[in-house]
């Protein structure tokens, strides 16, 4: 059964496990998921479930609905997708992970931080431009890299400090081929091939990780951002 974890300021405020065919998200109390916030429209979005698939549909909301930092109108959800509505984050899980965890205290009132909203929209615009320019998913160089954008247009992209790898990374203790990004049916996987603890996504060590838009990849001292091109 699918689960939606509602977070505010990185704190879990609600876990929703539902058998319904659709759930509505919005500011008013008649929604299944009520997000009391002026930045959230009354009928902001809805999620429809069909067998094991889930689709989120934005209801022409004023501030928009984002999936993995990308503004969407309608989007098929994948496990661990992060939906952003106002300052809320809703994490979608294919199956319920931890039922009955206490929600933290949340008084339900806040004002949408328009600066954060503008930043989200600006990131979305920039990333869309990059994806359009390259016609697919791209790795952007963030820190200690010798490129600004690298197109992920092949089945396997190697990362490390060997001369022959596609993406050079810096750091004394990394392997010649420290990691690879492999294109599979459901997306790009980052796979560690070298020393343990030298390949990270969003600060966490990974061995095999399905990349999501906006993931920050760190190999040794170099940092890259994964910009997904499926939209």
């Amino acid at each position, binding site marked *: 059964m699918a689960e939606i974890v509602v977070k505010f300021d990185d704190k879990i405020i609600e876990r929703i496990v539902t058998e319904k065919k659709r759930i509505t998200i919005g500011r008013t109390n008649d929604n299944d998921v009520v997000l009391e916030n002026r930045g959230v429209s009354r009928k902001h979005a809805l999620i429809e479930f069909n067998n094991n698939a889930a689709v989120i549909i934005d209801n022409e909301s004023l501030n928009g609905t984002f999936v993995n930092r990308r503004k969407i109108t309608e989007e098929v959800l994948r496990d661990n997708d992060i939906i952003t509505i106002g300052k809320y984050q809703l994490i979608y899980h294919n199956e319920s992970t931890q039922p009955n965890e206490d929600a933290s205290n949340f008084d339900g009132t806040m004002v949408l931080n328009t600066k954060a909203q503008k930043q989200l929209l600006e990131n979305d615009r920039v990333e869309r431009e990059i994806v359009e320019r390259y016609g697919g998913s791209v790795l952007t160089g963030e820190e200690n890299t010798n490129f600004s954008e690298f197109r992920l247009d092949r*089945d*396997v992209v*190697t990362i490390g400090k060997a001369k*022959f790898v596609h993406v050079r990374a810096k750091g004394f203790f990394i*392997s*010649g*081929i420290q990691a*690879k990004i*492999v294109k599979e049916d459901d997306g790009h996987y980052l*796979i560690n*091939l*070298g020393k343990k603890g030298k390949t990270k996504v969003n600060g966490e060590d990974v061995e*095999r990780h399905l990349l999501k838009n906006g993931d920050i990849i760190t190999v040794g001292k170099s940092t890259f951002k994964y910009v997904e091109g499926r939209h």
Partner: protein
Amino acid sequence: MKIALISDIHANLEALVSVVKQIEKLHVDEIYCLGDVIGYGCEPSACLDIVNKIASVKLLGNHEAVVLGMISTKSYTETARISSDWTKDKLSEKDIEIISSFQMTHTAEDMFLVHASPFEPDKWHYILTPAEASLSFDVLRKPLCFHGHTHVPVIFSEVPGDLPHKKTAHNFDPDEESRYLVNVGAVGQPRDNDPRACFATYDTEFKEVCFYRSEYDISTAQAKMTEAELPDLLIERLAVGR
């Protein structure tokens, strides 16, 4: 069908002749050559002529690619550069014509054939480590890959969810559930501490991979190279297989 797979002859005529004689006794249906017929040794034309006659599949090696101007020798060691310049100088127009007909890769039945690596064949990557082997499994679309290039006969097998396993060359029956990268070793310049010429066979019907070693007259091969004034390092290594 039974196929003999030979690679990395490196212009060593004594080694090639010895291997061909042994293959004749094995009653194979086809001979596939996986590249690097030339380079290092002193009889490139004679080796090209034999391979052209006996092999039904002929792949391009990096030493052939150098001669065709596809790779620069800028990053080569002095020994390698002397040898490639020497080779270029000796090749006839007919030799170049033969080399030009070599394929980069070949796919037949359940096999993929390449000189160096299924992963970016034209980059001539070495498959030495499980990490390097994993890149080739990512792009391999057949259960078996036969290749050469490192001059060391070795087998990598795919392990789901983990890095591939590396094993020294041994006769084996490929498991239908698994996939393999099989390095057939070198005919003309082995580097696995066994100076005998190395090659493999694959029986597509009985699904059996076998490795063979052929004794050959190393001293004669070395004497010819000395006569040709090729670098000592290339001459000496034949006797030790390194």
